[in-house]
């Protein structure tokens, strides 16, 4: 009678529900064939007379040619920023706030265009650039616009003053968002900036130059230099700068710190990570699985604070791993512009090689690999979501930052052991704790040496919340009131 008996029989296979492609149109972005440098409020031809091509990592198609800024270009940009600093730092703070508010509004108005450009150039899924990168970038400008005329209240009795020209170097994983993290507080405090976007993702920074024009940012206040590592090196060496802020690899961060030795230039470094995502046996398991997935497969794992080490209480290991693998099988890997894509393309061939090499080391060292069945596109750079079980703390995949969609699962027995294992790394950027017991979250947060500890969530960002690392993950804080301090001196 009833449509179904309560049965334990295997369910019949019913084919599949394939989602038809739902591609975000790319016509909204009009790219020029060739971009110069943005210096003194104008697009200028590089003195270096040299250009390079930026590619779409999902198709390997060339998108545009961008300038390779050389030593002379860097000098010109810093000069323009120094010249602009004098009037800009003397602007009434409320007027500076207006400029930042305008930038924020324009980012919102042009959000779709910028999101498509970000996904094209960087390979990240459009749903992430649309729902995370762009809203957060605008939020950072809104937030710091609010501080611009309230600096005296942020630091009572300390007379905050701007530093001068800030040299800012940002990575390729969140190109526009990292630009916003850097530029918004610098401008709010009255500095001018020379920003270098990453070599593989210059496009949204170049589009941001147009946003600056629209927002009537005075010429020279924001300068954008595209180029490779040598451009960054010239910038850091320049005598005219007053501040260096870098987000990127620990290796380059160390080189910058050596370069600045003996110079009176404040430095903030936001470097690598190998975060522990710690799951206790009383946690809400299905939601913990979502947090694990978000922690490591968000943005293809190209996230410095990614939860790349899963520390799971041994009593629930099997159940959790089973749930995790099933969830991984629902991840949709493919065209970043498809609105249903969960995992996009690996940002560059070089990064893909590094991920491949580390994953191979994991297999060789005896960890057990799982990748859900998924069809990877033929063109472009791709890596399937990967989880390693039976990982030992001494394996390279448990120690080194992979910066890809690769999770290493380790177990612990007690909270003390979880803390010890979580802290047993050269990094200290973030950590996650999953438990229904509030007091345990606080207990853990006191003991974890990580700049950010998330409780029952992961990869959550807000402009009001400071972000930064311990140990080889760097120093200095971005975001919140703390983020202002990096761009001020005190009289």
């Amino acid at each position, binding site marked *: *009678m009833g449509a179904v008996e309560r049965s334990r029989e295997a*369910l019949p296979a019913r*084919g599949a529900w394939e989602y*038809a492609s739902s591609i975000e149109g790319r016509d909204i972005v009009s790219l020029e064939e060739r971009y110069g440098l943005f210096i003194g409020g104008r697009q200028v031809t590089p003195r270096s007379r040299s250009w390079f091509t930026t590619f779409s990592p999902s198709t390997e198609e060339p998108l545009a040619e961008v300038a390779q800024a050389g030593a002379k270009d860097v000098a010109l940009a810093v000069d323009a920023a120094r010249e602009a600093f004098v009037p800009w730092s003397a602007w009434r703070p409320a007027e500076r706030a207006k400029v930042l508010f305008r930038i924020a509004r324009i980012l919102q108005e042009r959000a779709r265009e910028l999101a498509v450009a970000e996904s094209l150039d960087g390979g990240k899924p459009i749903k992430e650039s649309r729902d995370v990168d762009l809203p957060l970038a605008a939020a950072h400008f809104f937030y710091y616009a609010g501080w611009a005329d309230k600096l005296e209240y942020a630091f009572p009795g300390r007379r905050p003053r701007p530093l001068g020209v800030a040299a800012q170097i940002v990575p390729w994983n969140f190109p526009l968002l990292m630009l916003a993290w850097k530029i918004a507080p610098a401008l709010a405090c009255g500095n001018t900036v020379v920003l270098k976007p990453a070599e593989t993702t210059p496009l949204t920074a170049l589009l941001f130059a147009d946003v600056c024009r629209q927002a009537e940012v005075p010429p020279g206040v924001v300068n954008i230099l595209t180029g490779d590592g040598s451009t960054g090196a010239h910038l850091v060496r320049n005598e005219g700068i007053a501040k260096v802020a870098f987000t990127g690899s620990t290796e380059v961060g160390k080189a910058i710190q050596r370069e600045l030795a003996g110079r009176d230039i404040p430095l903030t470094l936001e470097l690598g990570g190998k975060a522990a995502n710690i799951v206790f046996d009383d946690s809400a398991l299905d*939601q913990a699985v979502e947090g694990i997935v978000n922690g490591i497969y968000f943005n293809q794992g190209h996230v410095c604070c990614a939860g790349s080490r899963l520390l799971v209480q041994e009593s629930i290991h099997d159940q959790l791993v*089973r749930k995790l693998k099933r969830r991984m099988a629902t991840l949709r890997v493919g065209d970043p512009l498809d609105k249903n894509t969960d995992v996009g393309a690996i940002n560059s061939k070089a990064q893909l090689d590094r991920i491949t090499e580390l994953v191979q080391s994991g297999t060789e060292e005896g960890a057990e690999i799982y990748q859900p069945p998924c069809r990877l596109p033929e063109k472009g750079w791709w890596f399937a979501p990967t989880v390693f079980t039976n990982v030992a703390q001494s394996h390279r995949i448990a120690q080194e930052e992979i910066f890809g969609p690769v999770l290493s699962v380790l177990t612990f027995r007690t909270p003390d052991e979880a803390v010890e294992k979580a802290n047993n790394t050269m990094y200290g950027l973030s950590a996650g704790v999953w438990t229904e017991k509030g007091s345990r979250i606080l207990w853990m947060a006191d003991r974890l040496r990580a700049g950010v500890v998330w409780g*029952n*969530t992961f990869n959550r960002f807000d402009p009001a919340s400071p972000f930064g690392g311990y140990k080889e993950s760097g120093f200095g804080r971005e975001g919140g009131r703390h983020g202002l301090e990096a761009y001020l001196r005190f009289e």
Partner: protein
Amino acid sequence: MSQTLALPRALELPGGGRLPRVGAVDAVALEARAAELAKRSIKRESKIFGLELAIRMMDLTTLEGADTPGKVRALSVKAMQPDPADPSVPAVAAVCVYPSQVAVARRTLRGSAVKVASVATAFPSGQASLDVKLADVRAAVEAGADEIDMVIDRGAFLSGRIGQVFEEVVAVKEACGDAHLKVILETGELGTYDAVRKASLVAIAGGADFIKTSTGKVTPAATLPVTLCMLEVIRDVHDETGLVIGMKPAGGIRTAKQAIQYLCVLHETLGIEWMTPDLFRFGASSLLNDVLLQLRKQRTGIYRSPDEFTLD
């Protein structure tokens, strides 16, 4: 630490399977996941598949004080052929009515595959003695109901008398005989997702074939997060015991767009195996016409006037 559900007796499920731990639900992350799945962009042939499936999964419902034989007959006719202009549109799964209207629906639907579902057990409040509830169930079954939608006693559940809730489900299941049992939790009255999870397990342990969100008489009725929460229970029960339990969100689902969102949540939680009217139903009254309208649009490219679709 993990708790096991403490029930007075009869906890062992047929076949010796054991219940999953009650476990916990994190409200923020649950709602975030539901919101993320609601953003799936379902187009063209995948949309047509979803819309047709939504019709086949529908329990076309009228539960009003003003229900008459005429109204129920009209609804039943519509259930068999929702779109007279397009015979390729499938029939709905069932017609859902009060016990007093079961006989009318039964007569009208004779010979069709559309089931008759009846609410029972002092619907919607469940505030009556067990004898009255069981009599209500038997009357509906005798009148020809294929499916019984019972309500749990929220008063008992919220005051901690979990054993009573469980025993009522067991008793109703027995009174159902061959009729298939859906247990309504009335999630809008339970207060937390943890309570929804616990009530789902109690209902399943008691013998529910389906668990159902709401009566439609309480706001909020079905929501995406609460449906996701219940689907996760069904998944855990299947993992632990092999039991296959169905799900019915009901109340507040009025648009084709919402229906597709529910199907995405179902698809990405339990998989394609659960995408059948045997294991998933929509309890709805006004949803059907919007699905018909959208289906016509997908097939012809043109939005038709709502007046082209019959009221019931």
